[in-house]
């Protein structure tokens, strides 16, 4: 089988303004992200022959990617809408990489945005997000999204002795990076106590264990390795990709405290020819704090059950064993829903180009991005690297 290792590279990356962006609709944010990424790549829209977007909750459209292509007046031969977020983002990027490697297209613009904060009411956002539950056998009981993830947190605490303080340490680490990320939605430094004293949302998850509700978008330009030298910036190569899917509804999960990140991580590391200890910076999907601990364990960054002590040790800080979520993540930078994983991806690119300013991991040559969606259901892992790692 033909490996996708090193066959494509990201040659443009950009974020829109994030947080509260009431002057731009979800569609306009998607277009804005696209234009920014093209500008970053130093190309015009006519040099793109593929387009990938994700479905918007604020402005859903049955043919979303086609609608964005029409808006931009580009006429791609590869045009795909990711139906959801989380791991789906990396899944569609892998598909785009495979399409490029197969010669279906040459240069794909991947732009994702939504307007959850300004484009929906709070009740609409709540109802929309909790609709991931089973219509007959979960949703009637009234679970919120934090409640679904609280079931996972509780299981991890019961099984491994994980503490609320260890969950809180994930949020504190994220906020510490966000304070160095210009434009982040939340920048005020927080302590473990601040997290524990914030309002309980779904025991054991406090308000500050939960990610944000945001507006925003991000985009990248993906092209073939052969073409990667023809752009303005330093190309960042896709080295490894993997996926794992274990269930959709949390009540059908075979194991609440171990996820399909095990499969997605193993596949991605095997393709990249790397080990967890080889990763210089990681962007780990952090919709809720317990998710991060489980993903770190399942991806092999620490032993199973030791995610809490790993984070408590300071491993995720700059200078630590695994600088993680260096833009502040979904917990503190922004979380507009389906596009969430894109911000981890653009941050990984900035890190590998050495453009992350005060939050830069010195000499970062490899980065890992992990996304998950559903309720710990659908996992996908992407490993990126500079040219010299090829």
């Amino acid at each position, binding site marked *: 089988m033909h490996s996708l290792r090193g066959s494509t590279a990201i040659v443009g990356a950009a974020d829109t303004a994030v947080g509260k962006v009431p002057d731009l609709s979800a569609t306009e944010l998607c277009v804005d992200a696209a234009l920014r990424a093209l500008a970053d790549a130093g190309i015009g829209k006519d040099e793109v022959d593929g387009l990938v977007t994700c479905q918007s909750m604020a402005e859903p459209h049955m043919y979303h990617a086609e609608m964005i292509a029409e808006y931009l007046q580009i006429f791609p031969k590869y045009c795909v809408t990711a139906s959801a977020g989380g791991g789906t983002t990396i899944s569609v990027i892998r598909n785009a990489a495979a399409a490029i490697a197969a010669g279906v297209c040459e240069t794909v613009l991947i732009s994702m945005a939504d307007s959850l904060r300004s484009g929906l009411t709070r009740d609409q956002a709540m109802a929309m997000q909790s609709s991931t539950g089973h219509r007959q056998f979960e949703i009637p009981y009234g679970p919120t999204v934090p409640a679904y993830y609280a079931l*996972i947190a509780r*299981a991890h605490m019961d099984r491994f002795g994980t503490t609320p303080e260890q969950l809180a340490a994930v949020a504190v680490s994220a906020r510490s990076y966000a304070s160095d990320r210009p434009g982040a939605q939340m920048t005020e430094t927080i302590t473990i106590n601040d997290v524990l004293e914030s309002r309980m949302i779904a025991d054991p998850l406090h308000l500050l264990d939960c990610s944000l509700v945001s507006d925003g978008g991000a985009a990248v330009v993906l092209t073939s390795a052969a073409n990667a030298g023809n752009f303005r910036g330093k190309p960042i190569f896709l080295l490894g990709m993997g996926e794992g899917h274990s269930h959709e509804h949390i009540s059908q999960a075979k194991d609440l405290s171990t996820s399909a990140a095990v499969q997605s991580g193993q596949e991605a590391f095997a393709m990249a020819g790397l080990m967890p200890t080889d990763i210089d910076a990681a962007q780990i999907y952090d919709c809720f704090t317990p998710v991060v601990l489980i993903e770190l364990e399942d991806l092999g960054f620490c032993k199973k059950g030791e995610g809490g002590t790993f984070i408590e040790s300071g491993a995720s800080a700059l200078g630590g064993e695994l600088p993680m979520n260096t833009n502040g993540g979904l917990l503190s930078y922004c979380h507009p829903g389906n596009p969430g994983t894109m911000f981890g991806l653009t941050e990984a690119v900035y890190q590998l180009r050495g453009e992350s300013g005060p939050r830069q991991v010195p000499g970062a040559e490899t980065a890992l991005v992990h996304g998950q969606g559903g309720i710990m259901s659908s996992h996908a892992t992407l490993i990126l690297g500079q040219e010299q790692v090829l």
Partner: protein
Amino acid sequence: MNKHEGKFLPSPDPVTLPYWEACKRRELLLQECSGCGAVQFYPRTICVSCSAVELNWVQASGFGTVVSWTVARLPVSPAYADDVPYVIALIELDEGPVMMAQIIGCEPESVQTGMPVDVCFEDWTDDITMPNFRARTNSGA
């Protein structure tokens, strides 16, 4: 006014209708494969174990154990506001399958993982009766 007004009511379909009809009779039904004998929840047209299509309805004991739980302090929609705080739990039935439900009739803080529970039923509308769970007493009453 019905206190369940505006909640997200289940819409029974041809496959799940026997389950919901049984709830009205205070019975909790599971599906059993006539081929391999596997017992499953939620109801489907096929056996999750062997994909056979011949499934029988069997009555569950109604006994189970709390696998995980949380207390929702924030309602999912205004229709659930009067219920706050409410316990959302995953219950492993004695027959094996896991289902989501609320645990009612106790202080939310008294719920524990591993706690034995048994099913109880609450009429939400003329058509929908929801199965929930409550702490099992030692007498089994």
